[in-house]
Protein backbone atom coordinates (compact mmCIF):
# COMPACT_ATOMS: atom_id res chain seq x y z
CA UNK A 1 0.00 0.00 0.00
CA UNK A 2 2.72 2.40 0.98
CA UNK A 3 4.64 1.57 -2.14
CA UNK A 4 1.59 2.15 -4.22
CA UNK A 5 0.99 5.55 -2.71
CA UNK A 6 4.57 6.59 -3.21
CA UNK A 7 4.50 5.54 -6.81
CA UNK A 8 1.26 7.37 -7.44
CA UNK A 9 2.59 10.54 -5.87
CA UNK A 10 5.66 10.39 -8.03
CA UNK A 11 3.57 9.80 -11.12
CA UNK A 12 1.28 12.66 -10.17
CA UNK A 13 4.15 15.08 -9.90
CA UNK A 14 5.30 14.03 -13.34
CA UNK A 15 1.83 14.61 -14.69
CA UNK A 16 1.65 18.06 -13.18
CA UNK A 17 4.96 19.01 -14.69
CA UNK A 18 3.72 17.65 -17.99
CA UNK A 19 0.65 19.84 -17.72
CA UNK A 20 2.72 22.94 -17.09
CA UNK A 21 4.76 22.15 -20.16
CA UNK A 22 1.78 21.50 -22.42
CA UNK A 23 -0.01 24.61 -21.19
CA UNK A 24 3.07 26.73 -21.65
CA UNK A 25 3.47 25.46 -25.20
CA UNK A 26 -0.14 26.26 -26.04
CA UNK A 27 0.16 29.74 -24.60
CA UNK A 28 3.39 30.29 -26.45
CA UNK A 29 1.73 29.35 -29.72
CA UNK A 30 -1.09 31.82 -29.36
CA UNK A 31 -0.17 34.76 -31.53
CA UNK A 32 -1.76 37.23 -29.12
CA UNK A 33 1.05 39.27 -27.63
CA UNK A 34 0.61 39.90 -23.90
CA UNK A 35 2.80 42.99 -24.12
CA UNK A 36 0.42 44.57 -26.59
CA UNK A 37 -2.51 43.71 -24.36
CA UNK A 38 -0.85 45.38 -21.40
CA UNK A 39 0.39 48.33 -23.37
CA UNK A 40 -3.09 48.99 -24.63
CA UNK A 41 -4.23 50.78 -27.68
CA UNK A 42 -2.54 54.11 -27.28
CA UNK A 43 0.94 52.83 -26.63
CA UNK A 44 3.95 53.48 -28.79
CA UNK A 45 5.93 50.64 -30.29
CA UNK A 46 8.68 51.47 -27.84
CA UNK A 47 6.44 50.97 -24.83
CA UNK A 48 5.39 47.60 -26.17
CA UNK A 49 8.98 46.59 -26.69
CA UNK A 50 9.90 47.74 -23.20
CA UNK A 51 7.20 45.62 -21.72
CA UNK A 52 8.26 42.64 -23.74
CA UNK A 53 11.76 43.00 -22.38
CA UNK A 54 10.58 43.36 -18.83
CA UNK A 55 8.39 40.29 -19.01
CA UNK A 56 11.13 38.28 -20.60
CA UNK A 57 8.99 37.58 -23.64
CA UNK A 58 11.90 37.91 -25.98
CA UNK A 59 13.73 35.04 -24.40
CA UNK A 60 13.70 31.71 -26.18
CA UNK A 61 10.94 29.31 -25.23
CA UNK A 62 12.99 27.01 -23.06
CA UNK A 63 14.39 29.84 -21.03
CA UNK A 64 10.96 31.26 -20.40
CA UNK A 65 9.65 27.87 -19.37
CA UNK A 66 12.59 27.25 -17.11
CA UNK A 67 12.12 30.62 -15.42
CA UNK A 68 8.51 29.76 -14.79
CA UNK A 69 9.28 26.32 -13.46
CA UNK A 70 11.94 27.53 -11.06
CA UNK A 71 9.60 30.18 -9.81
CA UNK A 72 6.94 27.56 -9.35
CA UNK A 73 9.14 25.34 -7.26
CA UNK A 74 9.68 28.28 -4.95
CA UNK A 75 5.95 28.77 -4.64
CA UNK A 76 5.85 31.80 -6.90
CA UNK A 77 3.11 31.66 -9.48
CA UNK A 78 4.10 34.94 -11.01
CA UNK A 79 2.19 38.16 -11.41
CA UNK A 80 -0.85 38.65 -13.55
CA UNK A 81 -0.03 40.70 -16.64
CA UNK A 82 -3.19 42.70 -16.54
CA UNK A 83 -3.94 42.85 -12.86
CA UNK A 84 -0.43 43.31 -11.60
CA UNK A 85 -1.36 41.21 -8.58
CA UNK A 86 0.33 38.02 -7.56
CA UNK A 87 -1.40 35.06 -9.12
CA UNK A 88 -1.07 33.13 -5.90
CA UNK A 89 -2.96 35.82 -4.01
CA UNK A 90 -5.68 35.96 -6.64
CA UNK A 91 -6.20 32.22 -6.69
CA UNK A 92 -5.95 31.83 -2.96
CA UNK A 93 -8.57 34.47 -2.35
CA UNK A 94 -11.00 32.73 -4.66
CA UNK A 95 -10.27 29.07 -4.13
CA UNK A 96 -12.29 28.56 -0.94
CA UNK A 97 -15.42 29.80 -2.66
CA UNK A 98 -15.01 27.37 -5.52
CA UNK A 99 -14.24 24.48 -3.20
CA UNK A 100 -17.32 25.26 -1.19
CA UNK A 101 -19.41 25.34 -4.32
CA UNK A 102 -18.01 22.02 -5.48
CA UNK A 103 -18.79 20.37 -2.18
CA UNK A 104 -22.30 21.74 -2.29
CA UNK A 105 -22.74 20.58 -5.84
CA UNK A 106 -21.46 17.09 -5.09
CA UNK A 107 -23.86 16.82 -2.18
CA UNK A 108 -26.75 17.89 -4.41
CA UNK A 109 -25.71 15.60 -7.23
CA UNK A 110 -25.37 12.58 -5.04
CA UNK A 111 -28.51 13.24 -3.06
CA UNK A 112 -30.66 13.87 -6.10
CA UNK A 113 -28.91 11.64 -8.58
CA UNK A 114 -28.48 8.55 -6.46
CA UNK A 115 -32.04 8.73 -5.23
CA UNK A 116 -33.38 9.12 -8.73
CA UNK A 117 -31.23 6.27 -9.96
CA UNK A 118 -32.22 3.98 -7.13
CA UNK A 119 -35.91 4.61 -7.58
CA UNK A 120 -35.62 4.19 -11.32
CA UNK A 121 -33.84 0.87 -10.91
CA UNK A 122 -36.39 -0.45 -8.47
CA UNK A 123 -39.29 0.71 -10.61
CA UNK A 124 -37.72 -0.46 -13.79
CA UNK A 125 -39.64 -0.13 -17.01
CA UNK A 126 -42.54 1.65 -15.42
CA UNK A 127 -43.74 5.14 -16.06
CA UNK A 128 -41.73 6.34 -13.07
CA UNK A 129 -38.59 4.95 -14.59
CA UNK A 130 -39.21 6.60 -17.92
CA UNK A 131 -40.05 9.95 -16.47
CA UNK A 132 -36.97 9.87 -14.26
CA UNK A 133 -34.93 9.01 -17.32
CA UNK A 134 -36.33 11.95 -19.20
CA UNK A 135 -35.62 14.15 -16.21
CA UNK A 136 -32.00 12.98 -16.20
CA UNK A 137 -31.62 13.90 -19.81
CA UNK A 138 -33.18 17.25 -19.23
CA UNK A 139 -30.62 17.83 -16.52
CA UNK A 140 -27.73 16.89 -18.74
CA UNK A 141 -28.94 18.76 -21.80
CA UNK A 142 -29.88 22.02 -20.17
CA UNK A 143 -27.44 24.87 -20.38
CA UNK A 144 -26.40 25.79 -16.85
CA UNK A 145 -26.77 29.45 -17.53
CA UNK A 146 -30.45 28.95 -18.22
CA UNK A 147 -31.01 26.75 -15.19
CA UNK A 148 -29.27 29.30 -13.01
CA UNK A 149 -31.28 32.25 -14.22
CA UNK A 150 -34.47 30.22 -14.01
CA UNK A 151 -33.82 29.20 -10.41
CA UNK A 152 -32.84 32.75 -9.54
CA UNK A 153 -35.90 34.17 -11.15
CA UNK A 154 -38.35 31.80 -9.53
CA UNK A 155 -36.87 31.30 -6.09
CA UNK A 156 -35.02 34.51 -5.46
CA UNK A 157 -36.84 37.18 -7.35
CA UNK A 158 -40.42 35.98 -7.32
CA UNK A 159 -40.55 33.94 -4.15
CA UNK A 160 -37.76 35.67 -2.29
CA UNK A 161 -36.63 32.51 -0.54
CA UNK A 162 -32.98 32.98 -1.42
CA UNK A 163 -30.75 35.97 -2.01
CA UNK A 164 -30.15 37.00 -5.59
CA UNK A 165 -26.68 35.66 -5.99
CA UNK A 166 -23.80 36.58 -3.78
CA UNK A 167 -21.64 34.81 -1.29
CA UNK A 168 -21.51 34.38 2.41
CA UNK A 169 -24.17 32.28 4.01
CA UNK A 170 -25.68 28.88 3.55
CA UNK A 171 -28.67 30.41 1.82
CA UNK A 172 -26.34 31.85 -0.78
CA UNK A 173 -25.01 28.41 -1.47
CA UNK A 174 -28.20 26.55 -2.22
CA UNK A 175 -29.12 27.76 -5.67
CA UNK A 176 -25.62 27.73 -7.16
CA UNK A 177 -25.03 24.22 -5.82
CA UNK A 178 -28.30 23.06 -7.30
CA UNK A 179 -27.49 24.62 -10.64
CA UNK A 180 -24.04 23.10 -10.80
CA UNK A 181 -25.30 19.81 -9.46
CA UNK A 182 -28.29 19.47 -11.73
CA UNK A 183 -26.08 18.41 -14.60
CA UNK A 184 -24.18 15.88 -12.56
CA UNK A 185 -27.36 14.55 -11.00
CA UNK A 186 -28.43 13.46 -14.44
CA UNK A 187 -25.20 11.50 -14.88
CA UNK A 188 -25.29 9.95 -11.45
CA UNK A 189 -28.90 8.95 -11.74
CA UNK A 190 -28.36 7.13 -15.01
CA UNK A 191 -25.18 5.45 -13.82
CA UNK A 192 -26.80 4.46 -10.55
CA UNK A 193 -29.78 2.99 -12.28
CA UNK A 194 -27.72 1.01 -14.74
CA UNK A 195 -25.25 -0.14 -12.13
CA UNK A 196 -28.02 -1.08 -9.71
CA UNK A 197 -29.91 -3.05 -12.32
CA UNK A 198 -26.75 -4.89 -13.16
CA UNK A 199 -26.10 -5.76 -9.54
CA UNK A 200 -29.66 -6.75 -8.81
CA UNK A 201 -29.58 -9.18 -11.67
CA UNK A 202 -26.70 -11.09 -10.25
CA UNK A 203 -27.07 -14.39 -8.60
CA UNK A 204 -25.65 -13.41 -5.27
CA UNK A 205 -28.60 -11.17 -4.71
CA UNK A 206 -30.96 -14.03 -5.24
CA UNK A 207 -28.89 -16.04 -2.85
CA UNK A 208 -29.17 -13.36 -0.23
CA UNK A 209 -32.90 -13.15 -0.64
CA UNK A 210 -33.17 -16.89 -0.53
CA UNK A 211 -31.31 -16.82 2.73
CA UNK A 212 -34.16 -14.84 4.16
CA UNK A 213 -32.68 -11.38 4.33
CA UNK A 214 -35.25 -8.65 4.07
CA UNK A 215 -35.52 -6.63 0.90
CA UNK A 216 -34.07 -3.46 2.33
CA UNK A 217 -31.25 -5.38 3.98
CA UNK A 218 -30.33 -6.87 0.66
CA UNK A 219 -30.62 -3.51 -0.98
CA UNK A 220 -28.51 -1.50 1.36
CA UNK A 221 -26.24 -4.21 2.61
CA UNK A 222 -25.33 -5.96 -0.58
CA UNK A 223 -26.65 -4.31 -3.69
CA UNK A 224 -25.86 -0.73 -2.99
CA UNK A 225 -22.20 -1.09 -2.06
CA UNK A 226 -21.54 -2.96 -5.28
CA UNK A 227 -23.47 -0.50 -7.35
CA UNK A 228 -21.48 2.35 -5.95
CA UNK A 229 -18.24 1.31 -7.54
CA UNK A 230 -18.59 3.17 -10.81
CA UNK A 231 -20.03 6.09 -8.89
CA UNK A 232 -16.80 6.43 -6.95
CA UNK A 233 -14.91 6.48 -10.21
CA UNK A 234 -17.19 9.23 -11.34
CA UNK A 235 -16.53 11.50 -8.44
CA UNK A 236 -12.99 11.71 -9.65
CA UNK A 237 -14.25 12.68 -13.07
CA UNK A 238 -16.68 15.15 -11.60
CA UNK A 239 -14.00 17.60 -10.75
CA UNK A 240 -13.04 17.74 -14.38
CA UNK A 241 -16.64 18.23 -15.44
CA UNK A 242 -17.02 20.99 -12.90
CA UNK A 243 -14.29 23.08 -14.40
CA UNK A 244 -16.43 24.21 -17.26
CA UNK A 245 -19.56 24.40 -15.16
CA UNK A 246 -18.18 26.69 -12.49
CA UNK A 247 -17.36 29.37 -15.01
CA UNK A 248 -21.01 29.76 -15.86
CA UNK A 249 -22.46 29.18 -12.42
CA UNK A 250 -20.05 31.53 -10.68
CA UNK A 251 -20.80 34.20 -13.21
CA UNK A 252 -24.58 33.91 -12.89
CA UNK A 253 -24.61 33.92 -9.11
CA UNK A 254 -21.78 36.34 -8.57
CA UNK A 255 -19.89 33.64 -6.74
CA UNK A 256 -16.30 34.81 -6.25
CA UNK A 257 -14.51 31.66 -7.28
CA UNK A 258 -11.70 30.79 -9.65
CA UNK A 259 -14.11 30.08 -12.52
CA UNK A 260 -14.69 33.79 -13.02
CA UNK A 261 -10.97 34.39 -12.78
CA UNK A 262 -10.19 31.71 -15.33
CA UNK A 263 -12.70 32.86 -17.90
CA UNK A 264 -11.54 36.47 -17.81
CA UNK A 265 -7.94 35.38 -18.03
CA UNK A 266 -8.60 33.12 -20.99
CA UNK A 267 -10.39 35.84 -22.91
CA UNK A 268 -7.57 38.28 -22.37
CA UNK A 269 -4.73 35.79 -22.58
CA UNK A 270 -3.40 36.70 -19.16
CA UNK A 271 -0.81 33.98 -19.20
CA UNK A 272 0.24 33.84 -15.54
CA UNK A 273 -3.33 33.45 -14.34
CA UNK A 274 -4.12 30.84 -16.97
CA UNK A 275 -1.06 28.85 -15.94
CA UNK A 276 -1.96 29.16 -12.28
CA UNK A 277 -5.56 28.12 -12.65
CA UNK A 278 -4.70 25.25 -14.99
CA UNK A 279 -2.21 23.98 -12.45
CA UNK A 280 -4.65 24.22 -9.59
CA UNK A 281 -7.37 22.37 -11.47
CA UNK A 282 -4.89 19.78 -12.74
CA UNK A 283 -3.84 19.19 -9.18
CA UNK A 284 -7.45 18.77 -8.11
CA UNK A 285 -8.18 16.32 -10.90
CA UNK A 286 -5.12 14.22 -10.31
CA UNK A 287 -5.86 14.17 -6.61
CA UNK A 288 -9.47 13.23 -7.23
CA UNK A 289 -8.55 10.32 -9.42
CA UNK A 290 -5.93 9.19 -6.95
CA UNK A 291 -8.42 9.17 -4.10
CA UNK A 292 -11.00 7.38 -6.21
CA UNK A 293 -8.49 4.67 -6.99
CA UNK A 294 -7.58 4.36 -3.34
CA UNK A 295 -11.17 4.10 -2.19
CA UNK A 296 -12.21 1.55 -4.80
CA UNK A 297 -10.73 -1.44 -2.96
CA UNK A 298 -12.59 -0.42 0.16
CA UNK A 299 -15.81 -0.87 -1.71
CA UNK A 300 -14.80 -3.95 -3.59
CA UNK A 301 -12.17 -5.87 -1.67
CA UNK A 302 -11.39 -7.98 -4.67
CA UNK A 303 -9.67 -5.07 -6.31
CA UNK A 304 -6.04 -5.15 -5.41
CA UNK A 305 -3.77 -2.21 -5.65
CA UNK A 306 -0.82 -3.27 -7.64
Amino acid at each position, binding site marked *: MGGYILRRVFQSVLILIGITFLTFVLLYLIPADPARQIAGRSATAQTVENIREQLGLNLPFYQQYFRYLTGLLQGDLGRSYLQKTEVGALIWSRLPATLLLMVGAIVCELAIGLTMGLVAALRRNTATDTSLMVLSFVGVSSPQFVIGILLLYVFSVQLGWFPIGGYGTFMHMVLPSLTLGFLGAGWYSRMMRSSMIDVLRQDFIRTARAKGLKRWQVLFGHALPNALLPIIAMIG*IDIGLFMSGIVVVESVFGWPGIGQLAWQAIQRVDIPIIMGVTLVSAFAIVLGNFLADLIAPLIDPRIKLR
Partner: protein
Amino acid sequence: MPADVKPEAMPDTVKTAAPEIPKGVWRRLLERKLAVFALALVGVIVGAAVFAPFVAPFDPAEQFFEGLTLEGAPLPPGETFWLGTDLLGRDLLSRLIYGAQTSLIIGVVANGIAVAVGAFVGILAGFFRGWVETVLMRFTDLMMAFPALLLAITLAALFRPSLWIVAMVIAMVNWVQMARVVYTETRSLSEREFILAERAMGAGLFRILFRHILPHLLSTIVVFGTLGISTTVLLEATLSYLGIGVQPPTPSWGNIIYENQTYFTSAPWLVFFPGIAIIALALGFNLLGDALREVLDPTQKGRH
Protein backbone atom coordinates in the same frame (compact mmCIF):
# COMPACT_ATOMS: atom_id res chain seq x y z
CA MET B 1 -18.52 -6.73 0.61
CA PRO B 2 -19.79 -9.21 3.21
CA ALA B 3 -17.81 -12.36 3.15
CA ASP B 4 -20.67 -14.78 3.19
CA VAL B 5 -22.24 -13.62 0.00
CA LYS B 6 -20.16 -13.83 -3.09
CA PRO B 7 -21.00 -13.73 -6.75
CA GLU B 8 -21.35 -17.19 -8.10
CA ALA B 9 -19.35 -18.54 -10.90
CA MET B 10 -21.24 -18.89 -14.11
CA PRO B 11 -19.98 -22.17 -15.44
CA ASP B 12 -22.48 -22.56 -18.19
CA THR B 13 -21.21 -19.65 -20.16
CA VAL B 14 -17.72 -21.01 -20.39
CA LYS B 15 -18.57 -23.84 -22.63
CA THR B 16 -20.85 -22.21 -25.15
CA ALA B 17 -19.48 -20.96 -28.40
CA ALA B 18 -18.76 -17.31 -29.03
CA PRO B 19 -22.07 -15.45 -29.19
CA GLU B 20 -23.50 -14.93 -32.62
CA ILE B 21 -26.03 -12.28 -33.26
CA PRO B 22 -29.14 -14.28 -32.41
CA LYS B 23 -31.50 -14.62 -35.26
CA GLY B 24 -34.50 -12.40 -35.12
CA VAL B 25 -32.73 -9.57 -33.29
CA TRP B 26 -34.35 -7.11 -35.56
CA ARG B 27 -37.69 -8.65 -34.94
CA ARG B 28 -37.19 -8.75 -31.21
CA LEU B 29 -36.11 -5.16 -31.28
CA LEU B 30 -39.21 -4.10 -33.06
CA GLU B 31 -41.34 -5.89 -30.54
CA ARG B 32 -40.36 -3.39 -27.93
CA LYS B 33 -42.50 -0.32 -28.20
CA LEU B 34 -39.95 1.98 -26.70
CA ALA B 35 -37.37 0.78 -29.18
CA VAL B 36 -39.64 1.55 -32.08
CA PHE B 37 -40.29 4.96 -30.69
CA ALA B 38 -36.58 5.57 -30.23
CA LEU B 39 -35.81 4.37 -33.72
CA ALA B 40 -38.39 6.70 -35.12
CA LEU B 41 -37.04 9.61 -33.14
CA VAL B 42 -33.48 9.07 -34.25
CA GLY B 43 -34.69 8.44 -37.76
CA VAL B 44 -36.53 11.73 -37.91
CA ILE B 45 -33.49 13.62 -36.73
CA VAL B 46 -31.12 11.89 -39.11
CA GLY B 47 -33.61 12.34 -41.90
CA ALA B 48 -33.91 16.04 -41.14
CA ALA B 49 -30.16 16.38 -41.27
CA VAL B 50 -29.74 14.49 -44.50
CA PHE B 51 -32.70 15.99 -46.32
CA ALA B 52 -32.41 19.45 -44.81
CA PRO B 53 -32.58 21.43 -48.03
CA PHE B 54 -35.87 19.74 -48.90
CA VAL B 55 -37.42 19.72 -45.48
CA ALA B 56 -36.57 23.17 -44.17
CA PRO B 57 -39.22 25.79 -45.00
CA PHE B 58 -36.70 28.62 -45.34
CA ASP B 59 -33.05 29.34 -45.87
CA PRO B 60 -31.48 29.14 -42.41
CA ALA B 61 -29.23 32.13 -43.05
CA GLU B 62 -31.85 34.44 -44.47
CA GLN B 63 -32.58 37.41 -42.24
CA PHE B 64 -36.18 38.36 -42.82
CA PHE B 65 -37.30 41.90 -42.36
CA GLU B 66 -40.65 40.52 -41.18
CA GLY B 67 -38.77 38.23 -38.86
CA LEU B 68 -38.31 40.93 -36.29
CA THR B 69 -40.61 43.43 -34.70
CA LEU B 70 -40.02 47.07 -35.48
CA GLU B 71 -37.79 47.43 -32.46
CA GLY B 72 -35.82 44.39 -33.44
CA ALA B 73 -37.28 41.79 -31.12
CA PRO B 74 -37.62 38.19 -32.36
CA LEU B 75 -41.05 36.69 -33.07
CA PRO B 76 -42.57 33.89 -31.03
CA PRO B 77 -43.88 30.75 -32.76
CA GLY B 78 -46.60 31.69 -35.18
CA GLU B 79 -48.10 31.14 -38.58
CA THR B 80 -45.26 32.03 -40.87
CA PHE B 81 -42.42 30.95 -38.68
CA TRP B 82 -43.64 27.86 -36.92
CA LEU B 83 -41.08 27.87 -34.17
CA GLY B 84 -40.48 31.59 -34.14
CA THR B 85 -37.50 33.60 -35.26
CA ASP B 86 -34.14 34.39 -33.76
CA LEU B 87 -32.51 37.72 -33.01
CA LEU B 88 -31.61 38.30 -36.65
CA GLY B 89 -35.04 37.45 -37.97
CA ARG B 90 -34.11 33.97 -39.18
CA ASP B 91 -36.54 31.07 -39.04
CA LEU B 92 -35.80 28.90 -36.02
CA LEU B 93 -37.27 25.71 -37.46
CA SER B 94 -35.07 25.87 -40.53
CA ARG B 95 -32.05 26.56 -38.38
CA LEU B 96 -32.86 23.61 -36.17
CA ILE B 97 -33.19 21.34 -39.18
CA TYR B 98 -29.88 22.40 -40.66
CA GLY B 99 -28.39 22.40 -37.21
CA ALA B 100 -29.07 18.71 -36.98
CA GLN B 101 -26.24 18.16 -39.42
CA THR B 102 -23.65 19.73 -37.16
CA SER B 103 -25.06 18.33 -33.98
CA LEU B 104 -25.24 14.81 -35.34
CA ILE B 105 -21.65 14.90 -36.41
CA ILE B 106 -20.65 16.13 -33.00
CA GLY B 107 -23.01 14.14 -30.87
CA VAL B 108 -22.79 10.88 -32.75
CA VAL B 109 -19.51 10.80 -34.60
CA ALA B 110 -17.22 12.78 -32.31
CA ASN B 111 -18.85 11.42 -29.22
CA GLY B 112 -18.87 7.95 -30.69
CA ILE B 113 -15.16 8.08 -31.27
CA ALA B 114 -14.64 9.34 -27.74
CA VAL B 115 -16.74 6.49 -26.38
CA ALA B 116 -14.92 3.87 -28.41
CA VAL B 117 -11.47 5.14 -27.55
CA GLY B 118 -12.35 5.60 -23.91
CA ALA B 119 -13.83 2.16 -23.54
CA PHE B 120 -10.86 0.62 -25.31
CA VAL B 121 -8.35 2.34 -23.08
CA GLY B 122 -10.32 1.60 -19.95
CA ILE B 123 -10.69 -2.07 -20.70
CA LEU B 124 -7.06 -2.53 -21.58
CA ALA B 125 -5.92 -0.75 -18.47
CA GLY B 126 -8.31 -2.50 -16.15
CA PHE B 127 -7.81 -5.95 -17.52
CA PHE B 128 -4.12 -6.19 -18.23
CA ARG B 129 -2.95 -4.19 -15.23
CA GLY B 130 0.75 -3.78 -14.72
CA TRP B 131 2.64 -1.26 -16.75
CA VAL B 132 -0.15 -1.10 -19.32
CA GLU B 133 -2.42 0.14 -16.59
CA THR B 134 0.09 2.65 -15.30
CA VAL B 135 0.92 4.14 -18.65
CA LEU B 136 -2.66 4.29 -19.88
CA MET B 137 -4.19 5.62 -16.72
CA ARG B 138 -1.57 8.23 -16.08
CA PHE B 139 -2.00 9.33 -19.66
CA THR B 140 -5.68 9.53 -18.95
CA ASP B 141 -4.99 11.67 -15.90
CA LEU B 142 -2.89 13.96 -18.03
CA MET B 143 -5.58 14.35 -20.65
CA MET B 144 -8.18 14.92 -17.98
CA ALA B 145 -6.20 17.75 -16.48
CA PHE B 146 -5.47 19.21 -19.88
CA PRO B 147 -6.94 22.65 -20.46
CA ALA B 148 -9.29 22.03 -23.34
CA LEU B 149 -10.53 25.61 -23.54
CA LEU B 150 -7.00 26.82 -23.94
CA LEU B 151 -6.42 24.30 -26.68
CA ALA B 152 -9.51 25.69 -28.38
CA ILE B 153 -8.26 29.24 -28.29
CA THR B 154 -4.84 28.29 -29.58
CA LEU B 155 -6.29 26.26 -32.41
CA ALA B 156 -8.69 29.06 -33.23
CA ALA B 157 -5.83 31.45 -33.61
CA LEU B 158 -3.78 29.10 -35.73
CA PHE B 159 -6.25 27.34 -38.01
CA ARG B 160 -9.30 27.97 -40.09
CA PRO B 161 -12.24 27.06 -37.93
CA SER B 162 -14.05 23.97 -39.08
CA LEU B 163 -16.43 21.36 -37.84
CA TRP B 164 -13.78 18.68 -38.05
CA ILE B 165 -11.35 20.50 -35.83
CA VAL B 166 -13.91 20.90 -33.11
CA ALA B 167 -15.03 17.31 -33.54
CA MET B 168 -11.44 16.27 -33.10
CA VAL B 169 -10.97 18.40 -30.01
CA ILE B 170 -14.12 17.04 -28.46
CA ALA B 171 -13.18 13.46 -29.19
CA MET B 172 -9.73 14.12 -27.82
CA VAL B 173 -11.05 15.54 -24.61
CA ASN B 174 -14.15 13.49 -23.90
CA TRP B 175 -12.81 9.99 -23.97
CA VAL B 176 -11.26 10.31 -20.55
CA GLN B 177 -14.44 10.07 -18.52
CA MET B 178 -15.42 6.86 -20.23
CA ALA B 179 -11.93 5.49 -19.77
CA ARG B 180 -11.95 6.09 -16.02
CA VAL B 181 -15.29 4.52 -15.39
CA VAL B 182 -14.68 1.54 -17.64
CA TYR B 183 -11.30 1.07 -16.02
CA THR B 184 -12.73 0.93 -12.53
CA GLU B 185 -15.42 -1.51 -13.49
CA THR B 186 -13.04 -3.67 -15.46
CA ARG B 187 -10.71 -3.85 -12.52
CA SER B 188 -13.51 -5.11 -10.39
CA LEU B 189 -14.78 -7.53 -12.99
CA SER B 190 -11.42 -9.00 -13.77
CA GLU B 191 -10.90 -9.99 -10.16
CA ARG B 192 -14.06 -11.99 -10.05
CA GLU B 193 -13.62 -15.63 -9.54
CA PHE B 194 -15.03 -16.85 -12.75
CA ILE B 195 -12.61 -14.73 -14.63
CA LEU B 196 -9.72 -15.92 -12.54
CA ALA B 197 -10.94 -19.42 -13.13
CA GLU B 198 -11.02 -18.87 -16.85
CA ARG B 199 -7.55 -17.51 -16.89
CA ALA B 200 -6.33 -20.37 -14.81
CA MET B 201 -7.82 -22.67 -17.37
CA GLY B 202 -5.84 -20.92 -20.04
CA ALA B 203 -8.71 -19.38 -21.95
CA GLY B 204 -7.57 -16.77 -24.44
CA LEU B 205 -7.40 -13.27 -22.96
CA PHE B 206 -9.29 -11.66 -25.76
CA ARG B 207 -11.93 -14.29 -25.59
CA ILE B 208 -12.45 -13.52 -21.93
CA LEU B 209 -12.54 -9.86 -22.70
CA PHE B 210 -15.18 -10.12 -25.32
CA ARG B 211 -17.38 -12.75 -23.88
CA HIS B 212 -17.34 -11.98 -20.21
CA ILE B 213 -16.12 -8.52 -19.49
CA LEU B 214 -17.55 -6.54 -22.32
CA PRO B 215 -21.19 -7.57 -21.89
CA HIS B 216 -21.12 -6.33 -18.32
CA LEU B 217 -19.68 -3.07 -19.41
CA LEU B 218 -22.22 -2.49 -22.11
CA SER B 219 -24.78 -0.84 -19.90
CA THR B 220 -22.22 1.61 -18.59
CA ILE B 221 -21.03 2.33 -22.07
CA VAL B 222 -24.53 2.94 -23.31
CA VAL B 223 -25.32 5.27 -20.42
CA PHE B 224 -22.15 7.27 -20.73
CA GLY B 225 -22.22 7.31 -24.45
CA THR B 226 -25.72 8.66 -24.73
CA LEU B 227 -25.33 11.21 -21.95
CA GLY B 228 -22.22 12.26 -23.76
CA ILE B 229 -24.30 13.24 -26.76
CA SER B 230 -25.84 16.08 -24.80
CA THR B 231 -22.65 17.26 -23.22
CA THR B 232 -20.69 17.23 -26.44
CA VAL B 233 -23.35 19.18 -28.31
CA LEU B 234 -23.29 21.83 -25.61
CA LEU B 235 -19.51 21.75 -25.45
CA GLU B 236 -19.35 22.38 -29.18
CA ALA B 237 -21.20 25.63 -28.56
CA THR B 238 -18.63 26.83 -26.04
CA LEU B 239 -15.81 25.88 -28.36
CA SER B 240 -17.44 27.66 -31.30
CA TYR B 241 -17.72 30.72 -29.14
CA LEU B 242 -14.00 30.56 -28.55
CA GLY B 243 -13.42 30.42 -32.27
CA ILE B 244 -13.02 26.86 -33.45
CA GLY B 245 -15.86 24.89 -34.91
CA VAL B 246 -18.64 26.19 -37.01
CA GLN B 247 -18.69 29.90 -37.49
CA PRO B 248 -21.77 32.06 -37.87
CA PRO B 249 -24.13 31.87 -39.61
CA THR B 250 -23.91 28.06 -39.65
CA PRO B 251 -26.38 26.81 -37.05
CA SER B 252 -25.88 24.06 -34.54
CA TRP B 253 -28.25 23.28 -31.71
CA GLY B 254 -25.59 24.12 -29.18
CA ASN B 255 -24.69 27.48 -30.60
CA ILE B 256 -28.32 28.50 -31.01
CA ILE B 257 -28.75 27.92 -27.29
CA TYR B 258 -25.48 29.59 -26.42
CA GLU B 259 -26.13 32.73 -28.44
CA ASN B 260 -29.56 33.17 -27.00
CA GLN B 261 -29.35 32.04 -23.43
CA THR B 262 -29.28 35.55 -21.98
CA TYR B 263 -32.50 36.28 -23.85
CA PHE B 264 -34.35 33.40 -22.46
CA THR B 265 -36.67 35.43 -20.27
CA SER B 266 -37.85 37.41 -23.28
CA ALA B 267 -37.52 34.79 -26.02
CA PRO B 268 -37.67 31.38 -24.34
CA TRP B 269 -38.43 29.51 -27.56
CA LEU B 270 -34.86 30.16 -28.70
CA VAL B 271 -33.56 28.01 -25.88
CA PHE B 272 -36.47 25.68 -25.40
CA PHE B 273 -36.71 24.17 -28.88
CA PRO B 274 -33.04 23.44 -29.48
CA GLY B 275 -32.91 22.04 -25.95
CA ILE B 276 -35.73 19.67 -26.77
CA ALA B 277 -33.92 18.63 -29.92
CA ILE B 278 -30.81 17.73 -27.95
CA ILE B 279 -32.80 15.84 -25.35
CA ALA B 280 -34.64 13.98 -28.08
CA LEU B 281 -31.45 12.89 -29.77
CA ALA B 282 -29.76 11.75 -26.58
CA LEU B 283 -32.87 10.05 -25.28
CA GLY B 284 -33.49 8.33 -28.58
CA PHE B 285 -30.03 6.86 -28.68
CA ASN B 286 -30.26 5.83 -25.07
CA LEU B 287 -33.50 3.98 -25.52
CA LEU B 288 -32.12 2.40 -28.65
CA GLY B 289 -28.95 1.42 -26.90
CA ASP B 290 -30.80 -0.05 -23.95
CA ALA B 291 -33.05 -2.03 -26.21
CA LEU B 292 -30.17 -3.31 -28.31
CA ARG B 293 -28.28 -4.33 -25.21
CA GLU B 294 -31.18 -6.23 -23.82
CA VAL B 295 -31.79 -7.95 -27.09
CA LEU B 296 -28.20 -8.90 -27.67
CA ASP B 297 -27.10 -9.81 -24.19
CA PRO B 298 -26.97 -13.59 -23.90
CA THR B 299 -26.98 -13.52 -20.14
CA GLN B 300 -30.36 -11.91 -19.98
CA LYS B 301 -32.80 -14.28 -18.49
CA GLY B 302 -35.82 -12.36 -19.62
CA ARG B 303 -36.56 -11.26 -16.11
CA HIS B 304 -37.24 -7.56 -16.57
